[in-house]
């Protein structure tokens, strides 16, 4: 890979040096990492501001609102409601600024409550639907499986193992039951066993993805930084 222009070459060098500074943190916290961290935080905050304007507020609210004001005479009733709602939202948002005055700070609770209420309200039915119901439907499997009229041992045992796991883990999570008798203790333990096997497996499963990330960084340093620079100056 060769940088296309001088700006790209400069960029690749900056990117490479910043990457090395981040890796230096592994050895020891040092001034280079501190500078990199400051740059990272700063740039990302700036980026966040630009994004929330250019990909959120501006196209979704400001542009339609301006358009509404310009052609308000041929707008439908729904559009009027929308505009009014936006003005109200603006009002709720402005209440946030009351935080800057110590005496009126309690007003800022309204926007917080408003955002929380919306989030919770939208979330509740979706939780039931996509978490509880979906998972329950997936768990509804028979413990006796027949294929072509004959008992399918492997499938049946597999289903039993799965169901035993789901029930015992659910039981492990019971909070208000005193689990002092040996039966419930055993069930809880089976639950923990399932949990631990599951966690160990997921941990190990992600190793590959993380190593690929590191490989990609190393590849970047080798291909684009070292080889790219050499190619740019026709040394390779």
């Amino acid at each position, binding site marked *: 890979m060769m940088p296309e222009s001088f700006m790209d070459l400069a960029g690749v060098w900056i990117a490479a040096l910043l990457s090395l500074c981040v890796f230096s943190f592994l050895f020891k916290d040092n001034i280079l990492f501190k500078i990199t961290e400051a740059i990272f935080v700063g740039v990302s905050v700036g980026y966040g501001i630009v994004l929330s304007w250019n990909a959120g507020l501006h196209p979704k609210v400001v542009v339609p609102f301006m358009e509404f004001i310009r052609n308000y005479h041929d707008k439908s009733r729904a559009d009027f409601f929308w505009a009014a709602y936006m003005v109200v939202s603006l009002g709720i948002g402005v209440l946030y600024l009351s935080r800057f005055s110590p005496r009126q700070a309690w007003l800022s609770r309204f926007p*917080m409550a408003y955002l929380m209420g919306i989030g919770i309200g939208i979330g509740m039915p979706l939780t039931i639907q996509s978490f509880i119901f979906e998972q*329950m439907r997936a768990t509804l499997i*028979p413990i006796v499986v027949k294929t072509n009229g004959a008992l399918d041992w492997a499938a049946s045992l597999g289903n039993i193992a799965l169901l035993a796991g789901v029930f015992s883990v659910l039981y492990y999570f019971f909070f208000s039951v005193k689990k002092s008798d040996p039966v419930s203790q055993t069930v809880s333990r089976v639950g923990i066993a399932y*949990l631990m096997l599951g966690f160990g497996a997921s*941990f190990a499963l992600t190793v590959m993805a993380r190593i690929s990330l590191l490989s990609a960084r190393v590849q970047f340093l080798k291909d684009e930084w070292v080889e790219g620079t050499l190619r740019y100056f026709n040394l390779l």
Partner: protein
Amino acid sequence: MLGDVLTVWLQRCDAVVFDLDKLNVFVGLALVGAAIMLCVSHARRGGAVFIRAVPGLQAVDDALGRAAELGRPVVFTTGLYGVDDVATLAGLNILGHLASRSAHYDSDLMVPCANPVVMTVAQELVKERLTQAGYPERYRADNIYFITDEQFAYASAVCGLMQRERPAAAFYLGSFAAESLLLAEAGAGAGAIQVAGTADVSQIPFFIVACDYTLIGEELFAASAYLSRDALLLGSVKGQDMAKVLIMAALAAGVLLLCVDQLFGCHWGTWFASLFTVTEAL
């Protein structure tokens, strides 16, 4: 006659105000809600509720005490997400209880935030709790601050914070994504006692491996009840368990019906399973 009227009426309703395809979700929500509210009202009338020990939470006091002894700060984070995320709200609830307890110790409670709204809620919460506990002067607004909402910029800033401030205890309670292990390993490197809890299934293994105590999934939501020992909150945990009993019963019934299907070739189980389908609007 009455049936006809009802059907017509229901059909009309279907078109206007209520989506009958989603009736099952409504019933589910109502059942869970009823279970929780029943137990809460039972608790309000003075019914005692037992709640089992949650290992991570017993360590909270030790961790806070240790921080005070060493004169080092305590770091608390709720993760990347905003207040529309329930796990974040659960984390904030715990932050409230933690603030009440840490008030007696006078150790710095640092809350670096990745979401500005969470920051404002956290500030309000800690201030209120410290005032209730009688130490309003211990509230330092600068300790609860916004860093950035970018995942890895936030993670690197918190890693740096861990290395420089060397907190005695670190709490990660809320919603986390891939940054979970970055935070937890940086904290472990700084020698902090770490308590983590998240509802995000894919991040629990990392916390389990790297932290001293981990609240697994649902334990995060029960934590505020456990810490406060408040009767109403305990009641709601009981309600949660009741709802779980309902779900387990439904599962058991469904599995049995499906077995009957397999053995006798009928379709009761499939019908039962279809109760849990929701037609997705495309």
